Each structure stands twice: as C-alpha cells, then as structure tokens.
C-alpha cells in the first residue's frame, strides 16, 4: 500500500462520516499519514454527506481528492452519480446494492456490489451497514488491518460502546466475505 484516497458518501445517518473517521484513526494507529476531510454546509441536511480520507505511507499533500480517488464507497444512488467520476483509472467503486440498483457506468474501474443494508439487517442492526461496506473495502485493499479498526472503535466510542464490538466485527467480516468471492 502506498497511498489510499477514498471518498465515502451517502445520505445523512448512514454513518459515512464515522466510517471515514474509523479508517483514519486506524491508519494513525498503524503510524501511517492520515487526513479526513468532511463536506460541510447546507447539503448535509437531507442531501448527501461525504468525506475524503487519505491513508498513506508518505506525507499527504492536499487532503482534497479530485480525480484521483483510489476508491469510492457509495451508500446511496446520488452518491454514485456524484462521485464515480472522481475515480482514477483502475480505481474501485464499492456500491451498496441494497439501495442502488444502478451499475457503475465506467468501464475502466473495478466495481463491487455489496448488499450492505440486507446484511446489516440479517445480523441484527441496520446501523452497521457502513461497517459492512468498510469490511469489503478493507478486504480488497488491506489499507489497514481489521484489528486496527476495532482498536480505533474503542478509542473513538469509548468503553460505553464496547458491547457493540462483536456486532461491528461481524459486519466487517460479512462485508469482506462478499468481495472475497
């Protein structure tokens, strides 16, 4: 891994910001260079929320991802339409197929379809759909280890949420299984 540039997007409440923060925190735990840049402003109310995460072995220049995303993780349709164009050639687009029927349009990228909402419901909590997507992403890229993400989870959410760790672990694993093929 040299530099991973990921755009995560969905609607407010799908946990895209926290998914990005967990990945960023996990990267920091592994002593990598990291940055997390959120979209902010009126579009967050009801529209798409997104964040740009960079995890790198070398110093990070701009925290903004323009046309050079190595991966795009989209939780809803407007996000796919908005961010597919930001992928570099051979980049990866991870699509939440529970909510997005459309396929990736670009032929020069790798596309993956993960029924994140269905899987999250199956294991008992819709709110971990983001972790299903993150699990798939980590399986494909090994950007950080799953252990680091769990470590990050403990740091970000504190002792009060530790009982949720098994559920989140399972979500990560189920997402990974979809793309393991």
């Amino acid at each position: 891994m040299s530099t991973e540039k990921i755009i995560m997007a969905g609607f407010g409440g799908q946990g895209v910001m926290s998914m990005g923060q967990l990945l960023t925190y996990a990267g920091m735990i592994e002593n990598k260079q990291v940055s997390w840049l959120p979209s902010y402003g009126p579009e967050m109310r009801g529209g798409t929320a997104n964040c740009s995460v960079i995890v790198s072995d070398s110093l990070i220049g701009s925290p903004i991802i323009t046309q050079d995303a190595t991966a795009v993780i989209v939780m809803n349709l407007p996000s796919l339409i908005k961010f597919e164009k930001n992928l570099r050639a051979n980049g990866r687009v991870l699509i939440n197929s529970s909510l997005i029927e459309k396929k990736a349009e670009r032929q020069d990228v790798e596309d993956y379809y993960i029924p994140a909402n269905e899987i999250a419901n199956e294991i008992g909590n819709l709110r971990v759909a983001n972790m299903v997507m993150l699990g798939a992403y980590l399986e494909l890229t090994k950007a950080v280890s799953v252990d680091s993400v769990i470590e990050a989870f403990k740091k970000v959410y504190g002792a009060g949420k530790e009982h949720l760790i098994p559920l989140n672990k399972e979500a990560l694993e189920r997402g990974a299984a979809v793309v393991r093929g």
Partner: protein
Amino acid sequence: MTRILMKGNEAIGAAAIKAGCRYFFGYPITPQNELPEFMSKEMPKVDGVYVQAESEVAAINMVYGAAGTGARVMTSSSSPGIALKQEGITYIAGAELPCVIVNISRGGPGLGGIQPSQADYFQSTRGGGNGDYRLLVYAPASLQEAVDLVIEAFDAADYYRNPVMVIGDGMIGQMMEPVEFREPATKRELPTKDWATTGTNSSRKPNIINSLALDPEELEKHNIKLDKKYKEMEEKEVRYEMYKMEDAEVVMVAYGTTARIAKNAVDALEKEGIKVGLIRPITLWPFPYKAFKEIPATAKALLSVEMSMGQMIDDVKIANEGRLPVEFYGRAGGMIPTPEAIAAKVKDILGGAK
C-alpha cells in the same frame, strides 16, 4: 507525546488551553463553530472562563478587558465576524495588549458563503481597523502547524504586547489530522506584565489601559514606539517554507491549504519533467519578502495561487521588485483550486504542454 486525531477547530482550542489561555469570548459562525463549542466544554475543566457574547463586537471588547488584566485570552470567528471585531482589534493594538484572534475564513464579501476561502488576506495583513497598526499573522497549512502556531501565538502576543492572528480557511477548521501538543519552537524571554490592571493594592500608581491620545506630539511618539515593535517583528518573525526550488522554471507562491494543493501540482509536474518550486508564506505579516531573494536564475515566472480573486499577489509583486512576470491563478467564493488546474496554468505560462 502521543498523536491524537482531532478536528482542526477543536485542535486549535486544545492548543490554546495548552498555552495557558483561560478566557475565551466568542459568537457562533460557520465554519468555526466547533472551536467555541470545544471551549465551552473544556474551559470549565481548567477553571477557565467561556462566554458566548451577545455579538462579535461584545466578544472582542471582552477580550480587550481580559487582556488588560494580563490574562491569556482568545476569540475566534469567521470572515464577516472578524470584520465586526476590527474596531476592538485596533483598540487592543493601540493599547498594546496581547491576545490571540482566530479567523477560520469563508467566502465573501458581505455574509458571503461558508466554504473555504482566502479572501481575508487584505483584512488581516492591511489592517481591517483604523490607524497605524499591524498584526502578526500566522497561516498554518496543516493541523499540526495550526496547533504549534496557536501555542506560539500566545508567547508572541505577550512578547510584543500585540494581537496575533491565526488564519485558517474552512478546511483547516473542518478537517481531521493527527496532532501532538509540544513546546513552542521559539523560546522567548517574556517580560513581566507590570502594565496590567490587576488592582494597585494601594502600593503603586494605577495602570491605565487606553488608546486615546489627543495630543498629536504624544500620539506620534506612540506611533513611533509601535512602529519600532513592528520593525522588530519584520526582522525576527518572518517564516516561510521553500519547496523544490532547485532549477525551478516557475515559482508558485501559496499559503494555507492552497499551498498543499499547490505541492500536489508541483509533484505531478515534476513527474512530467517540469520543474516548479513553491514559496509558502507561514507568516502573512510580516510577509517573507526575503524568500524571493533565493529564487533560482532558472525561474521564468512567478505564480500566485490563492482562494481569492488575487490579494497576496500584491505582496508577491512587492517581493518580486519587477524582476519576473507575476501570474495569478485563483478560485473564489468557496471553490477550491485543483492540482490539475494549477498544473495546467503552469503549462500555460511555459507556453503550452511539453
């Protein structure tokens, strides 16, 4: 020290507390709201004071009052809010009081927008308020630098008895990066605050905090005294970074997060065999004019890259002393330049793609 992942606005607040700031007066405005929010939570834990004032004007005058007692005090706002504070800022500079002012700037003019912008360059370096005064202005490009400079700003303010501004665009406020809190790089011998209005205890003459001087002779003397201080800042406080300047054909000048985007453009162009360097002012005032003396003979042009319609370019022209053509690339209103567009501009300057 361990690194912590923090949002820019919160990291700036934490750095201020670390530097001994115990008084914060503010008024909400996007994109700096997490800073007062953080202070409202954290100040009580260190026996500090947080007040959400009734307006920006009130907040800066609370800063004036607290600074007069010798306390370490800070306020923060964003562009139009900083405009409202200008009267207080010039009074504080006139009365020679230390304080730190943070501007997490947004697009203007007027109420403008809430997205990142650098259109407050004139406001912060040319004085938004009246009279002959200067602010020391730091422009961090990363959260670590923001934290370091905020901690340093309190020392510099005390040393010069002058307001210090830390200016970041909305991106600095909103993004998250790892930071660690460390001692300031510059060790300063700080004078005792024997001018502070802390009560005479009937043992000395009262100290007076004032910016009114009706006798022109007296006021001129005061102006000369202030100017001496600003000259000392120009001599000692200039900071900048030079990036890949060797054999550069075009030298870009950019500060804050724009400098990071410019660096990406420099690296991308390097891969194509085009040599471009970058001067990154870290202090906007005093401006690093002397950095321009180190520009290599290979340089054919300067390119000022800003998130404005062109403000810093005035200083670039002063620094250039008419030697090289000075070009400009900027986005405004909250739009952010892309490395690709900057690289295209460089190729344009060099006469088409190589």
